């Protein structure tokens, strides 16, 4: 939330430009009182004249602003001299003491105009600040309400995830106990479905943590060997013996700066995606290379690829492509989570069509020196 911008407020509070109408009114008023006083000049003392002129100057300052006020003061000064200080009809002053009267009048008029104007400006600034504060308070209230709703959603998701995992453990445990009995097949389905539910809970929790910016990140120097090995291990169950070609330089250890757990999730999601969308026996290529200070992990499959018009959208949550084969299940969170996990650790994830058909996902992170000091 931004603080009140005082320069902007001050600028807006400056005296408004007087309109020609207010000029006309106040110059007219000055002319009128001058005429009236001129008609009764014999009965008026200098003090009366000065006070009446001062009234007009103050009125002009208050009503039409500083410019009008000062103009009135100057004109009244001239009129005072011309009509009301002897010798009349000339800008000359016979009695030197009258100069004192005249200048006191001028200074009083101008200072009064200035003071009035300053006061008016201060009032206007105060009003604008009050408005601004009210507006910010409203924005803050709205932001606070949003934040609370968001926090509530996260707390709810976390609690739901937590409270779901405990009964899921019981369900799996009991299913396992009856696997040996007459309903072995059904018990196995219960276990598998419990696992699926658990993965969905993980995805939703991760999404909400990403949304809340609450995902802990621990960047360290890690090796490509280690990450690829861990990804192979994690996806063992999903790959079910499907061939994986590893494309890594044999004589060189590659290293990068990334969060191992999140990077593992990215790579595992990409491999799972590749396994889902390509024929069962076709190999998946998993590789890494360093160029221009970037360590890039590549996952390639021989599936149908992604049509050009869908390429931007595959990373959106709950989005599943039109090429999804029958029987493939999932919430459509895998790629969306992968891209966001890549980005929160300073990396990127992009799609490229693979030459010769299929998809190619490139996950890049900053490279690191792989020959440490001994």
């Amino acid at each position, binding site marked *: 939330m931004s603080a009140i911008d005082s320069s902007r407020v001050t600028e807006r509070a400056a005296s408004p430009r007087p309109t020609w109408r207010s000029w006309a009114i106040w110059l007219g008023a000055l002319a009128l009182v001058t005429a009236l006083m001129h008609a009764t000049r014999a009965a008026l003392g200098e003090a009366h004249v000065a006070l009446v002129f001062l009234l007009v100057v103050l009125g002009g300052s208050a009503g039409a602003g500083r410019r009008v006020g000062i103009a009135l003061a100057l004109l009244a000064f001239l009129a005072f001299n011309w009509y009301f200080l002897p010798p009349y009809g000339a800008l000359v002053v016979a009695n030197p003491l009258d100069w004192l009267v005249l200048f006191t009048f001028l200074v009083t008029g101008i200072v009064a105009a200035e003071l009035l104007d300053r006061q008016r400006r201060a009032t206007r600034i105060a009003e604008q600040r009050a408005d601004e504060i009210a507006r910010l308070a409203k924005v803050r209230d709205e932001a606070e309400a949003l934040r609370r709703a968001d926090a509530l959603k996260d707390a709810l998701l976390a609690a739901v*995830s*937590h*409270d779901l*995992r*405990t*009964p*899921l*453990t*019981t*369900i*799996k*445990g*009991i299913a*396992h*106990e009856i696997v040996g009995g007459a309903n072995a097949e059904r018990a196995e389905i219960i*276990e598998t479905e*419990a*696992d699926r539910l*658990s993965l969905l809970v*993980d995805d939703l929790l991760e999404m909400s943590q990403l949304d809340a910016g609450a995902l*802990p990140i*621990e960047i*360290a*120097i*890690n*090796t490509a*060997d*280690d990450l*690829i*090995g*861990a990804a*192979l*291990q*994690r996806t063992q169950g999903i790959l079910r013996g499907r061939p994986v070609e*590893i494309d*890594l330089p044999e004589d060189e*250890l590659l*290293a990068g700066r990334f969060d*191992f*757990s999140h990077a*593992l999730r990215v790579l595992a999601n990409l491999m799972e995606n590749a396994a889902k969308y390509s024929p069962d026996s076709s190999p998946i290529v998993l590789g890494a290379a360093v160029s221009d200070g970037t360590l890039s992990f590549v996952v390639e499959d021989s599936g149908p690829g992604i049509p050009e018009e869908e390429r931007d959208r595959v990373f959106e949550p709950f989005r599943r492509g039109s090429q999804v084969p029958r029987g493939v299940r999932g919430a459509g969170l895998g790629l969306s989570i992968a891209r966001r996990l890549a980005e929160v650790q300073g990396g990127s994830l992009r799609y490229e069509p693979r030459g010769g058909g299929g998809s190619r996902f490139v996950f890049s992170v900053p490279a*690191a020196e*792989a020959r*440490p*000091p*001994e």
Partner: protein
Amino acid sequence: MAVSEQPLANAVLVIDDEPQIRRVVRNALQPMVSRVLEAATAREGMDLAAAEQPALVVLDLGLPDLGGMEVCRDLRGFTAAPIIVLSARHGEREKAALLDAGADDYMTKPFGTLELQARVRAQLRRYAAATPASSRVVAGDVEIDLTRRVVTRAGAEVHLTPTEWGLLRAFVSHPGQVLTHNQLFRKVWGGSAGDAQQYLRVYVGQLRRKLESDPIRPRLIRTEPGVGYRFEPGD
């Protein structure tokens, strides 16, 4: 799987406030041990652990009366028995912190019965072996002799740098045990923080490339993602 073999331990202790989880753990472990003790609170669990000296503790993190980290530390004050932590939260950082606090293994709910049995069996075996780790290890075609500072692979001597030696020594001295990154830092570099520390994982990568026949699918030095490494000399 019929398990009618000799019980692996006399008693194990389950500390969990959820009766259903205690039931699942009890049913999973009963075939393997003589007695499964149960406690619903940390206090009760600590009293039972002190009185019965169980060979292993299965500890839930979400106990109503005390945090998991504290329970781990308190248990470590009087027993060396393996502690396997159960948690509904999943996070490698939390896992590493628990291992640093004295836990031996960690499982995220929902876990499977077979997985639990395997972890318990591994911890009980490791604890029962309890003999100091051997200074000479043969694993596949790799032979490690810590006293003579010699490593051979398929009969040929492998040259290791001093840091790689430090790492290997730490691994060999704790077979089958997860060593967190922090624990490895302390064992290899002592208390001193330096530039070399941040390359821990690179040193492990180098060591693997020298010892493992397939460094992408390592058999000796396994990765525990986000937590650390585990040395598996094999049976």
